[in-house]
Structures are given as C-alpha cells and as structure tokens.
C-alpha cells in the first residue's frame, strides 16, 4: 500500500506537505477499557482492565486496581481472577477448550460489565509461505507472508493473525473471514506496509475467532487506517470499535484458539 500511495503522490505532481498540529481536543472523563483473551494454550489467561487517557497525555497503560474479575467456563467452573500488577488480572482455575462458552464479569465502582464468547474449533495452521516482491527502485526483494491453512467448508470461520518481527509486534490488524474463500486453502498474503527482509525472524500467530470478535477488529481496522479523514480515508466518520462487552465498555472479550509458527527469512 505504501508503494501505491507513493505512485499516486508522484503522479499528481503534488508538493504535498505534512506538519504536526496541536488541536484543542476535549479531555473526556476516563472510560472503562477491558481486554480479555481465553485461548487453548496452557493457562493462565489475562484480562486487562484500564481507563482511557487524554490524547496529549503520556502513553501509559492506565490500569485499574481493585476490580472484581470473574470468568466462568461453561457455567461450571467459576474462576475469580487475581491481580498481578495494576490492571492485569490472571486466571487460576480454567483451561481453555474449543467449543466451551466463557462468560466474563467485571465489577468496578459498582458498575458491572459482562461479555460472553464461545471458543471456535481450531483450524490447523499448516505453514508460513513467503511471497517474494520485486524490489522498489532497485532495492533488494522483500517478502509478504502467506499463512497456509485449509478452511473447512462446513462452517463459517473467522480468523485473526498477529505478526512478531524480531520480537516486536507489527502494528496492524489482520483479520479474514471465509466469505469468499469457504473450503479453500489460503494463498492470500497479509497486507501490510511492513517489509520483511532476509535475516528477519518472523513469528506468526493464527487465531480462530468468533463473529463478534471479528466485528470488533473489523470496526477497529476501519478506524485506525486513516482516522480524522480527508475525502479518501477509509472511514470519514470514525467511531469506537463495536465491543461485545456490556455497559459501553471499550475493548473486547475473546475466547479463541491460537497456533504459532516461526520462520527465519534467508
């Protein structure tokens, strides 16, 4: 996409320029943020509870202490989470299992936030395929990453991917659904401006997520791609991502499977 934008810029002969501006942004009251994931890897699992900060405040995880966080597994095992550091709560009893229903309840300042998520059955993550890209302006070739897996034809599936490059998470949202590829083996690379070069160590995680969580990431993706938009931004009227948690809490609660593959590019 970077290249695509570059082409447009060079063509329109624009002397386009960018500058940092200071805007008078409202400092809203801090809002509740909950991020929780239960997966099929060995426990414990973490629920993060925090509050939003002002735009011009320092970047810091504004953790909430003293909240009551409970996750129940199929309504049989009830697990009250323990806080490790401010805002980080960990499970003690449950082991994530595909097909199980997980219910989360967070109580803070007398307000209860609830969410439910069913862990989908796992789709096998076969391998990572590297797709070479011609170098731009005579540079060395780079690669795009294709997660290879066969989508099961008899179910509707939603996927999420995360990439760690040399230990650092690539700041993009990668999601997919089988709407146009039901029953097919994936051969579409993950689109990102990030370049993967020889020497890079790549860790690719594949998550099978449920629809509500897909919707969260879908709406998140619309908002982050080019917020505050000009005429051609993805969403001219950005809004908070659609959360599956009650009482207007931001964030999501997801029960999903997770599989990891690593590759060293040569």
């Amino acid at each position, binding site marked *: 996409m970077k290249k695509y934008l570059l*082409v447009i810029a060079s063509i329109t002969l624009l002397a386009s320029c960018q500058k940092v501006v200071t805007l008078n942004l409202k400092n809203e009251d801090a809002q509740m943020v909950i991020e929780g994931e239960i997966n099929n890897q060995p426990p414990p699992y973490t629920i993060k509870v925090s509050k939003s900060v002002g735009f011009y405040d320092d970047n810091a995880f504004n953790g909430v202490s003293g909240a009551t966080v409970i996750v129940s597994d199929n309504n049989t095992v009830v697990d009250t989470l323990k806080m490790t550091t401010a805002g980080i709560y960990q499970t003690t009893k449950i082991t994530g299992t595909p097909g199980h229903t997980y219910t989360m309840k967070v109580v803070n300042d007398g307000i209860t936030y609830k969410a439910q998520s069913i862990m989908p059955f796992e789709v096998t993550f076969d391998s990572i395929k590297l797709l070479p890209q011609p170098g731009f302006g005579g540079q060395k070739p780079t690669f795009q990453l294709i997660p290879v897996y066969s989508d099961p034809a008899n179910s509707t599936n939603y996927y999420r991917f995360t990439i760690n490059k040399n230990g650092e998470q690539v700041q993009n949202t990668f999601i997919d659904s089988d709407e146009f590829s039901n029953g097919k083996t994936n051969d579409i690379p993950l689109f990102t401006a990030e370049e993967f070069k020889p020497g890079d160590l790549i860790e690719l995680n594949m998550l099978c997520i449920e629809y509500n969580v897909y919707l969260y990431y879908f709406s998140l993706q619309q908002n982050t791609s080019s917020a505050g938009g000009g005429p051609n931004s993805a969403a001219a009227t950005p809004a908070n991502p659609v959360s599956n948690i009650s009482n207007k809490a931001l964030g*999501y609660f997801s029960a999903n499977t997770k599989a990891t593959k690593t590759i060293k590019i040569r």
Partner: protein
Amino acid sequence: MFNLKKQLLFASLILTAFQSYSQTNKVTLSGTMKDARNGETMMAAAVRVMELEGIGGISNEYGFYSVTVPKGKYHFIASYTGYVNDTFELDLQANSQHNINLRARNTQLKTVSIRSNRNDDNVKKAETGVEKLDMKEVSKLPVLFGEKDVLKTIQLLPGVKSAGEGNSGFFVRGGGADQNLILLDEAPVYNASHLLGFFSTFNSDAIKDVTMYKGTQPAQYGGRLASALDIRMKDGNKSAYEANGSIGLISSKLSVEGPIAKDKGSFFISGRRTYVDQFLHLSSDTLLKDSKLYFYDLNAKANYKFSKKDVVYLSGYFGRDALGVGSQFGINWGNATGTVRWNHVLNDKLFSNTSFIYSNYDYKISIGNSGTTTDITSRIRDYNFKEEMMYYPNSVHQFRFGVNSIYHELLPGEVSSSDPSSSINSSKLQTRGSWENALYVSDEWKVNKKLNVNMGLRGSAFSVLGNGDFYTLNSNYKIIDTIHYNAGSIVKTYFNIEPRLTASYQLNEKSSFKIAYNRNTQNLHLVSNSTSTNPTDRWIGDNNNVKPEIADQASMGYFRNFKNNTYELSAEVYYKYMQNQIDYKNGANTLFNDAIETELRSGIGRAYGLELYAKKKFGRFTGWLSYTLSRTERKIDGINNNEWYVAKQDKTHDISLVGTYDVSKRVNVAATWVYSTGNAITFPSGKYFVDNQYVWLYTDRNGYRMPAYHRLDLGVTIKMKEHKHYNSEWVFGVYNGYGRENAYTITFQQDPDNAAKTQALQTSLFRWVPSISWNFKIK
C-alpha cells in the same frame, strides 16, 4: 390500480386546463432561436412585442419559442445577453413561423458573466434558487492544473459547497453528494468525477449550457433531494467546419464540429485524455513503469432536421478512469450515457420532446496475486423513457407536462477469479431491479404585471421488483425472515406527490420578492463512508426496508438590480426538512453485503441558511461576491446517542470572490478567492491501550472542525493575433497563489521522536500549483 387512477386524474386536469385557454381571435408566432455564427440553438433567449408591454416568449431548451398575440402588425425584439438585439416587424393575420438568428456582439462586452434572456430576468422571472453558468466565463477562471471544470465553477456560487480540496464533488443547501441530480443531455450521470474526485466528467469544451436548481427544481426534474444540475452538450456548428483544441499540463482536448448538411444538421465530437502516466513509462522502476493513472472522455452529438417540424438528436458520452499499480492492484471505472431525442412541433403552440435515454456506471477492481487475478465488479444501469410536451396557449400561461419511466438495474457486486483453483470462490450479490415512474404538470403563469407564478405537481411511483430474496428485519435490524419474489413480481411500490411552487412579486421595476416551496423525493441512495464520492461507493434502491427520502424546502428571496441592470444583488433564505435520511451504523460491514439494510440506520435531517450574492455583469470588470451562512444537521437512529449532530458537509461560513478584468482587447486577468469554515469532523477525545497498540477514543460524532480553508487563484488569458483560418490563446494560472497550507487530512499517530506521546499530523496538498495551456481554433 391506485396508480392508474392518479394518472387518469392528471390527464383530465390537463385537458380541462387546455380547453379553458383555447382562443380564437389570436394568432401565434413560433420558431427557433439560433446563434447566427454557428447555428447553435439558444436556450432562454427572449422575444418581446414592443407594442404590448409584458407580452413575449422565452425559448426552451431546444431554442423553440412561441408568442400569442391578437391579430395585427407588431414590432418584435429578440434579445440575449452578449448578443445584438434583432428587431423585426411582422403583420400577423394567421399563425406563422419565424426563425431568429442572433449575432454575438463583437466587442469586449462579448464576455459577460451570467447569461439571461433579459438583463433583468433575475428580478422578473418566477425562479429562485437557480444558477446559470456562462461557459465563456468558466473558461476564464483559474483552476487546478488549468483543467476547466463546470463543477468547480459552480462551487463558487452561493449555497453550493466544495466536497474538498481540488474536488469536483459538491453539496447543495445541506444535501449530500448523492442528492444532486446530474444530467448530461437528460441522462443521469451516477459518478461525475474522475481521478479520485480531482476532475469532473464534464469536458468543458463539449458543454453548451449549465443550469442548476438548488432544491427549487421545476416539476420536470425528479429523483434527487438537493439539486438538479442540467448540463447540455453543444450541438455543433451548422454552417461551417471548425476544430477547437487545447494542450495543457496534464491533459489535451480536441473537438471537431460542422454541418452534416447545410442548415439541416450538425455534429460535434470531443475527446479528452490525461497523460501523466506517460511520464511513468519513462521510469526505470518496473513497478512505476507498469502503473496506470489516466482518464479519458468522449462526447459526441449529432442532430438532423428531417422537416420543419422534426429534429432528431443523438448524443453520447463515454468516459473511463484507470488506476493501477503493476499487476497487483487495479481499478477502472466510468460512465456511459446515450440519448436519442426527437423534437416535434405539433403546432404553433404545442411542442413535444420524446427521449430514450441509457446510462451506465460501473467499476472493476482487480487484485493480482501469485499469477491469478480476482475481479470485483459493480454496476448501475438505467433504461429511461421520457415524453414531454410544452404548451403555449397564450402569453399568460406556459404549460409543461410529461411522463417519465425508468428501469433501474443495480448489480451491487460480483467477485470472480481467473483461476478456479485459487483460494477465492466466485460469488455474486443479487441484482436488484426497480421501475420508477413519474407524471408531472407545471404552469408558468403571468398572473398580472407584478405577479408571476410557476406551479407544478409531480407524482412519482417507485416499484421494487423481483427476482430476488427480500429480508424482514426486527427492531434490532436482524434478519428474521427471507421472502423470495419471482421475476416480474412487485415487492413494494412507493407513491409520492411532490408539489412545487415558485412565485415572484415585482416590488418595482428594479426589485422583486420571491417565495418557493418544493417537495422532492429520492429513491436511489448512495451509501458512502467517505466525505466525497469514491468510485466504489454503493448505490442502492428503495426496498421493503429502505424508504424513499423526502425533502420539503421553503425559501424566499429579495432580488434587486442597479444601474441599468449592470449590478445585481440577491438575498435568499431557506429551510429544509428531510425524512428517511440514511447512514451507516458504527462499524458497518459495507463491502459486499447482500442485506445492506442491516448495516443502515435512518433518521431525519434539517438544513437552513442565508445566501447573499452581489454581481457586476457588464463592463471591463465583471465578477461577483457570494456569501453563505448555513447549518446542516442529522438525527439518525443509533448514531450519536440519537441526538442531533452536524452533518459532515456543514460549513458555517462560505465566501467566494470572483473577478475578471479585460486589460486590453487581448489580455484578460482573473482571480478567485474562497474562504470556508472547516467541515465537521470526528477527532479522538482520548486514547487507550488494547493489543499492545493505542486505539483512539471517539465521543461525539462530528464534534470537531477542520481548520478554516482559504485560497487565492490567479489566471491570465492572452489572445494571440487572429488569423483568417486559425486563432489561439495562452492561459496561465496559479492555484493557491499565496501557498496556504490547507488541511486535506488530519491523522493521528505515535510521535516518532517521543515514544511517550501521540500527535496530530496535518497533510496539505496543492500549494502554488502553476498551470499553462494553449487553446486553438481552426476554422
């Protein structure tokens, strides 16, 4: 059945009206008004009877006029701004025909700003909220890259706002970009922009006439809420061959016109292509070399006079954009329209126009991947029939009535893959068909010397047709039932009655007061998640869930001319209430969704404003100042906590200052200055941490403003020495002359120099963009 009854009622009303106006001791003079130089028919030219004050006629879109007077000998004056008056004397004892040829004034006065049949037309006619563009003026004003554009000139008029920097999209009186009816020779153009909106689909060399109604459109226009923009292509020179061309920085144009048979018919062909991408081919980089970015247009028109009473016109437009990066990504889109039109003079008082119209808009996105290509296509197509009659019973009334029937075919999307073994399955959304019918009648009535009234009634019916599955939604917009309708069956029909009324009252010779009320409805909707039109925005029709949009607009205005009509001044106010406005819900899945209505929310809207306009029409210096003060708001179910919020196109203040000055016979300088409040926008009011990255916190929809926008453009036109067979001119311009960094976008990101902070980044496009073009004419 219900529909048929209404039709009959209409017909009988019309008939009674005619009978009461039939007269016997009067005679009618009729004919065609033409430009003496090239035989182009002239619209809105006037004929007056010297002996009878207030009696006269005005030519229609095809140059036809009709005047009814008592038998006798009279002096007639035909006039048109910028043309020499033609005076003739006729002894009328029976109905007669007389064609009028008007000669353009060969002085500097030739360049006038607003064309009107009479110089005080703005005060006297029962028209309000109407703007007419003079193509000669459009050609003088400086524009981005020197590419003349009627849609950009229109944005300089009161009540019309630009959709963004260098953008050809526009908003009228608080309406959305899709609420403008854009007609090219009667054919609707569904996406009037090229190259991401920087250029319009209208090649200014091919255009003869542009009229815009700001929600006050007469009954013959229907189907859009905010405005009707009626663009007419040139007919072509009837007496001699000529070629016009232009070579500019980013595009070249050529048009050829001439007679088919002397005084019988003519043709006009014009083409335009941009060629920036040709420079890319020089690049050594393979990706740049294989990139595409161009558009082209082709306009063609021909007319032939088969008899004194019959003229047939054929006109067509074809334009296409292509944008692509290597073989990885490509998108091409374009419009095609075609019109066959038959003008028939039934008698001196009755003029008929029959049209068959086709229009098509489609786009195709191609994504190349490991040797296979996946295409996504979408299309909207219209087959349209119109029959209109104009009836001039006497000099007091002018009737217009007609019927319009359109079959719309919408293919929202189709995905196909070139390789069946690829991971993409081919699929197709349901093609939707609908049938839109309208009947209308209007009367331009001179009640007395002071009061003019234009009243009309339009009845519209929109039928949603099978074949297809239709969804029943519950109150949470979830599908609870799916019903299949077979081909040919009607799912639902929406009826609407749209009254239209404009009245002008003459306060004195120089000033008037006007009022108007309009109801407009809209059955096709563009659902868009971006501020301006994108090629991939999706058109949808009404269905069992999506209802017709309805707008009621009331407006009034005061019009005054000074110094023998050299200066004109107007002040207009309007209030508009809109129903069934639609918007996407938050986090809508917009792409490739068959049950799109589950993603839409509906509500109401209101818009109100004040428009001031001052203009100098004649002299070496001409120009205008326009100012708009307005507000546009929406209240949509589920958005902004169901509270009123300002619409994205809301700009509180909007000012345009335009001037052109004839320095000498050969040199003209022009300048435009625009200022507007930044449009309403949603900015983050905070941030929070999820998935190891920052997410912006949004609170109120459109709760912020972009910075104010202003810009000065300058231009010089230098005419070269005239030769017997050719002449030429150079046009130089600078866009954004003082280099204001206007905000195109403001984005939010991590501060690259300080990991602890986030920042807002403003991107500005064009500063000091020079342009140069050379225009020529060969005759």
